[in-house]
């Protein structure tokens, strides 16, 4: 039987009160994943300090409740982590921290970690350009 959308309390909390929604003007790194045509799109913004630590993170998300909750959770998990630590955050970790996601939402809406990683890559490539 297909599992139907039933959200854990943690998911609902992050959906109703998402942490770190917003945009960072001239952020150190920006990552965008997904596609509105498919129903989910996320943009992550990070600012990084000298120790390669994420000192600020913000996101904007178009998508279902799970997508928003995932983004919020990822932003919370990433905050204060070093880039290497942040790159360790996996989709599975996020789902686990959220107390599970409905099976049919695991793939399409669980893009938060990808967006974060993309923002980190963006930061790194910008830095490489600057330094190079």
């Amino acid at each position, binding site marked *: 039987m*297909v599992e*139907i*959308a039933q959200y854990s309390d943690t998911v*609902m909390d992050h*959906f*109703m009160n*998402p942490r770190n*929604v917003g*945009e960072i003007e001239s952020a150190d790194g920006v990552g*965008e994943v997904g596609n*509105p*045509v*498919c*129903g*989910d*799109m*996320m*943009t992550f913004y990070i600012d990084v300090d000298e120790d390669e630590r994420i000192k600020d993170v913000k996101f*904007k*998300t*178009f*998508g*279902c*409740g*799970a*997508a*928003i909750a995932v983004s919020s959770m990822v932003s919370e998990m990433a905050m204060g982590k070093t880039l290497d630590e942040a790159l360790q955050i996996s989709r599975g970790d996020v789902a686990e921290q959220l107390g599970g996601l409905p099976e*049919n*939402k695991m793939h*399409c*809406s669980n893009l938060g970690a990808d967006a974060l990683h993309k923002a980190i890559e963006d930061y790194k490539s910008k830095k490489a350009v600057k330094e190079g």
Partner: protein
Amino acid sequence: MPEVYLDHYAATAALPEVVEEMKPYFSEKFGNPSSLHGWGDDARKAVEEARARVAALINAEPGEVIFTSGGTEANNLAVKGIAWAARKKGNHVVVSAVEHFSVLHAARTLEKFGMEVTEVPVDSYGMVDPESIKEAITSDTVLVSVMTANGEIGTIQPVQEIAAAAAEKGVGFHTDAVAAAGYIPLDVKTMGADAVSIASDLLYGPKGVGALWVRKGRRLMALLDGGVQEGGRRGGTENVPGIVGMGKAAELAARDLETRAEYLRGMSSELLKWLPESIPRLSVTGHMEKRLPWNASFVVEFIEGEGMLLFLDQKGIAVSSGSACTSRALKGSHVLTACSIPAEIAQGSLLFSFGLDNKPEDVDYVIETLPPIVERLRQMSPLYDKFLKQGGG
């Protein structure tokens, strides 16, 4: 908190009179209509009375009504049953692009068995052009199936003209009236169809019952083989309480059709008028005039339906959406796609379906509650960001 249920298209509460009428058939008059004794007699009479009541709703002969387990079974029986019974005459079926999945997927199954299916497109209001039906019909066509009205967008189809187009070419015509029956007058004697599907739930009857009307003499292959119940066209012990409930619901729907339609139209047209005024970049879907009285459907740009549903639920408002995320199959509404609505806009679909239990105040509550929700979700949306940056707003 108010409780405002605006999802009657998904499910209605059975009316008290309906439940009352069903009650004795669970444990007292519990017989099998096929049985040759008093218990059987009671059940048989109840089923035949219900059949007459359902027939009356569409001005049909009781003997032409087949009870099914719902709209889906009625549609499957019509599409597969008529096409298969005629498969020696031809192997082509015509449907519209906005049919319910129980018609569209039934047609797809016919394809798996070697039949050909033409999906006729619709205009941006979801309307089928009878001319395009005429053009789609070939010498191999055995069935045209176009719904009486679409529940998702409310659009009422020109069935009489489509029926005439099919009749002109000697092709059978089925219409899925699940969303329409009880809300617009239907008369099988004048509409020209050969088969009409209806369901109990939208009539404030119980779930799990429906009916297919099939014109006498029209050949039909059974879908549920078994005993000779329903004239051999639908096997299985009859769902007596369910059928009795549908009968009562049909009787009330026929009696109150006009007052119900007027009452529902009053509320839905308010919402159709005011919601676009309260929320920018929100548009009505479906046809503005040729529209089911209970339907008020919209698309809201830059955000996705599920989020709106969840926030509305928190405020006690129950609605549905045709967005991909809200469908269990995770596919966006094929109906909105057929109306040429871009996929990302269709994600913001919202369907308000009014019912007898709604009050005019419910419209006010929605108009007051929805805008801040939309605003909140838009504030989170990267699409809205882009739109604003591009100078929109």
